[in-house]
């Protein structure tokens, strides 16, 4: 197994092997490799495996971590490299078999899965949490708490306001339409709104609707505040608190 040897005056003071867990180096006795010297910070650096390579990372130490006399914040280590911390030298022996890679947790990439599989409740909670932790864009979470609503600005409809609860919302004269248009010569199904994973899409029916004045040819995702015009009716799409 690969190992680190703490040297002082060309003599081995201590040896630790680098396994699946990171090796911490510092003055504090709780380190895997304690270095008793005032020039060494309490938690100075750590060495670990990432994607099959041994890496040293400086933990914002006062006097720095050096690999082969170059100051580094983070560097890949090779067999025979020397890490200098304070007055001490740490020899890198990377000749053994690399351990099962320890992932820093920064990028939890899962193995490729070709066969369909089902997660049980516990696994799925874990995976979603892990996914949420890596996803920086949780700003949509707030949007999801809000209620998608169509507010009627002009035109004859059976209600003044419609909350979009179904996967499919039909705008038209049909008795089965969610947004029922009133009046002669109104189409049965003028337009429709489809709830998809990433939002609400307005699509044409018997008429070509307009979003903010622009006619649409195919499904277009609605944004908060969009103005929808179809068959003489003007609707405001909003996410209500």
């Amino acid at each position, binding site marked *: 197994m690969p190992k680190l040897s703490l040297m002082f005056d060309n003599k081995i003071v201590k040896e630790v092997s680098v396994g699946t867990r990171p090796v911490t180096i510092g003055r504090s006795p709780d380190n895997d490799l304690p270095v008793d010297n005032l020039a060494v910070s309490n938690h100075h650096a750590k060495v670990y495996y990432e994607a099959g390579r041994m890496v040293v990372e400086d933990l914002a130490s006062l006097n720095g971590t050096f690999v082969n006399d170059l100051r580094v914040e983070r560097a890949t280590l090779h067999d025979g490299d020397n890490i200098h911390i304070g007055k001490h030298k740490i020899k890198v022996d990377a000749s053994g078999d690399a351990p099962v890679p320890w992932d820093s947790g920064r990028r939890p*990439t*899962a*193995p*490729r*899965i*070709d*066969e*369909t*599989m*089902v*997660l*049980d*409740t516990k696994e*799925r909670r874990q*995976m*979603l949490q892990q*996914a*949420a932790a*890596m*996803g920086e*864009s*949780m*700003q*949509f*979470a707030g*949007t*999801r708490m809000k209620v998608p609503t169509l507010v009627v600005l002009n035109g004859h409809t059976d209600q003044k306001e419609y909350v979009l609860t*179904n*996967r*499919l919302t*039909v705008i038209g004269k*049909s008795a*089965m*339409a969610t947004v029922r248009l009133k009046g002669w010569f109104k189409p*049965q*199904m003028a*337009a*429709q709104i*489809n709830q*998809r*994973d*990433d939002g609400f*899409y307005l*699509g*044409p*029916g*018997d008429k070509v609707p307009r979003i903010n004045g622009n006619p649409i*040819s*195919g*499904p277009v995702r609605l944004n908060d505040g969009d103005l929808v015009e179809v068959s003489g009716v003007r609707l405001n799409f909003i996410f209500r608190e």
Partner: protein
Amino acid sequence: MRIASGGVTDVGRVRANNEDCYKIVEPLNLFVLSDGMGGEAHGEIASAMAVETVVQHCLDLEANPAAQVIGPTQPNWSARTKRLSTAVHLANRKIFKSAEENPDQHGMGATLTAVWIDGAKLSIAHVGDSRAYLLRGGSLLQLTRDHSLVAEQVRRGILTAAEAEESDMQSVLLRALGAQAEIEVDAEEHTLFPRDALLLCSDGLTRVVTEPEIAGTLQAETNPGRAAEKLAALANERGGPDNITVVIARAEKDSNGWFSWLRRGARKNPDSNGNVGGN
């Protein structure tokens, strides 16, 4: 409303066996599709069991209308929607029980997407990542949401739809028949309009064929069986990485509208649906 339908299932170009299964029950306008999973031949067992159970329970509606309803329902649902949703719960129990009793079937499961059309009312029940779409007014509307990890991440705003399509995790399902003793079934009712085209498909189609291509094929080829074959052929052209199943049903208006007598003269073989009108 008259319904014309057709379907096709194809092993694809990579897999050795076809774990997909579908059934069209024309007299009932019932369409059921399932994609099985599990080692050996167990995916095939699971999907066949799923389709058979759902079809049997729906066929039984006339003979045994008072059968127990399983799972949550909406008060305004029709008897058919309740029946269909219950049938999916039953299929889950059956697969789960079979896998428990036969250790070699451990891990087998199936998706299920079923649509039952009654006049202008469309009932849908669904678990897994096989999809149902409606082509209406030139737009393809998705009636189902995938119960997959990546789709859930899109709904939570963690991934974009485009990132989800590139993900290595597309095969990870959050819900499937047979995985747990009891499951949640997505069920809904929609209104069917004349000229609507319904499409059910397994992920072997949607992984390699885009939605605009599906919409284009449905518009260009109005014969349901031929359109299904064209879509399966397109998926195979793209490598056919998985089993492909496509079921298509089209709603055509009965010609008993106010002005139907105007159109009658133009038709080659006027039907005898009781209309009176001049030539």
